[in-house]
């Protein structure tokens, strides 16, 4: 449904998207995952033809977006990151405009608005000015305008950004439901969101694709190893060195205040680790075996460029996992 080939985009001198290629099959929900500034929004803007690529091609519903973009745009429902809406009109008249501008006739729009409003649970707000709605409801109006013309392809840029946890889970459910009939490309910097809603994920970092696979497979890429999290009171460098020397240990990483020891899954190294720490005369405050999550996979894939700032992105969203 969506085919992206060798897409490259420069903003002046700055390279925003670097030679990315991927496909989204009919009926699939594909997640574009990456930290802020990875190039997700730029890629989506090119797919929707808001921006022209420096190089590369995009096809949507078999229309080349450079040559036949007007035809291609008819098949796309787009929700940009900022949820752009006219604030001086009511929900109804906005949806009417959104439908008509995408080629629907007046009567069709009228009946379709009722369906869409019900689907997005906006019934009570249909005659309210958009400017008076809260962010969560604006977001629903944003989704409503993206599906009003029953597009085959939906492109959702950070669809749950800035709304409260209850609405986040409602929105994810809505996306899953929509995914039964539409082809969806969504972007997110939140791993749990992608793993909950998407069939497949493309991970982007600094404009490049660093991994692309089904959610299940991505976990098994790294499933070959397992991690033990230690909290040790002692000189960090020495502890790391000593633990690294233990037979079977693949890698020791330190992330304040924990040491992470990667080891093969068939081997339980905990007694050896314990022994080493006692030998060193340090204090063991905690030890726990952790499964590699998508977060870890992401770190693994982009480990050379990884720094503390990016970690914050994931930490702030941990609350969402339970929501």
């Amino acid at each position, binding site marked *: 449904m969506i085919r992206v080939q060798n897409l490259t985009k420069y903003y002046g001198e700055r390279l925003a998207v670097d030679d990315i290629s991927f496909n989204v099959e009919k009926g699939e929900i594909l997640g574009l995952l990456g930290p802020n500034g990875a190039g997700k929004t730029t890629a989506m803007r090119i797919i929707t*033809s808001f921006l*022209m690529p420096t190089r590369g091609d995009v096809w949507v519903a078999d229309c080349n977006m450079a040559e036949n973009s007007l035809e291609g*745009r008819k098949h796309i429902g787009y929700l940009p990151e900022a949820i*752009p809406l006219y*604030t001086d009109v009511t929900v109804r008249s906005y949806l009417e405009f959104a439908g008509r501008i995408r080629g629907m006739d007046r009567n069709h729009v009228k009946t379709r608005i009722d369906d869409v409003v019900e689907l997005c649970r906006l019934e009570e707000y249909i005659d309210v000015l958009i400017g008076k709605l809260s962010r969560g409801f604006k977001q629903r109006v944003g989704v409503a305008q993206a599906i009003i013309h029953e597009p085959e392809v939906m492109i959702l840029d950070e669809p749950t950004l800035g709304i409260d946890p209850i609405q986040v889970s409602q929105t994810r459910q809505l996306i899953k439901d929509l995914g039964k009939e539409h082809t969806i490309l969504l972007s997110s910097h939140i791993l749990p969101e992608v793993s909950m809603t998407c069939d497949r994920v493309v991970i982007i970092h600094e404009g490049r694709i660093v991994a692309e696979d089904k959610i299940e497979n991505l976990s098994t890429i790294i499933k070959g190893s397992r991690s033990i999290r230690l909290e040790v009171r002692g000189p960090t460098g020495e502890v790391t060195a000593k633990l690294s020397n233990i037979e079977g240990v693949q890698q020791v990483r330190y992330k304040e205040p924990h040491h992470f020891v990667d080891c093969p899954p068939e081997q339980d190294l905990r007694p050896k680790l314990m022994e080493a720490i006692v030998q060193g005369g340090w204090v063991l405050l905690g030890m726990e075996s952790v499964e590699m999550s998508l977060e870890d996979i992401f770190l693994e894939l982009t480990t050379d460029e990884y720094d503390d700032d990016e970690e914050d992105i994931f930490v702030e969203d941990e609350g969402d996992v339970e929501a």
Partner: protein
Amino acid sequence: MRNIGLIASKEFRSHLTSPMAYIVIFVFLLITGTFFSTYLTGTGYTDTSIAGFLSPGNLLLLLFASVLTMRLLAEEKKMGTWELLLTAPVRDSEVVLGKFLGSMGILLSMLALTLYYPLLLVWFGDPDIGPIVTSYIGLILLGSSAMAVGLFASSVTSNQIVAAVISGVILFALWFLGSAATLVPANIGELLAYISLMGHFYDFTMGIIDTRAIIYYLSIIALFLFFTIRSIETGRWS
């Protein structure tokens, strides 16, 4: 055509829901009305005409065209609605023409509200109808040109105030070029006089319909609408 109509009617309605259009129309009527009546009752009175309305009317029209058009594209860019409009199956030219015609609607409504000046003249006196009709044609052409310039200014920035300043500068430069004509060598002066918005307008107030003037204003409109479309395209490539 359908899309142009859709955007134009949306734009016209959006003007009517914002206070700006009402303020502009109110101030326009207040100032031109004052000048119109003082002209007729004052000592400078020489003929039964709408000259009193026209003398501030033409400059006010330039000013208010900037104010009315400054938000057309700049606001959409700021709000991000621009992104939805440009990804809808609509040509860039349709967006531009729709916005232009929607604002023209406001301009025509504003001018229609001034029609009671000539009606008063007809009621109480015996004015020469010809120059009145041509003056209105001139005002419509002048106002449309100013709106095309304003639309262009609005396309190059997402800040409404900057847009208004840009269009103000372009319009007043075009307006006063004619005045500078006497300061430079004759052949350059003639050129300046020709591209001046002001020079062509005065023919209309005297009851003259000069095809050159009509072509001039239509060219200004076409040129700036074209610039606007190109400016949008440039945005996609940047």
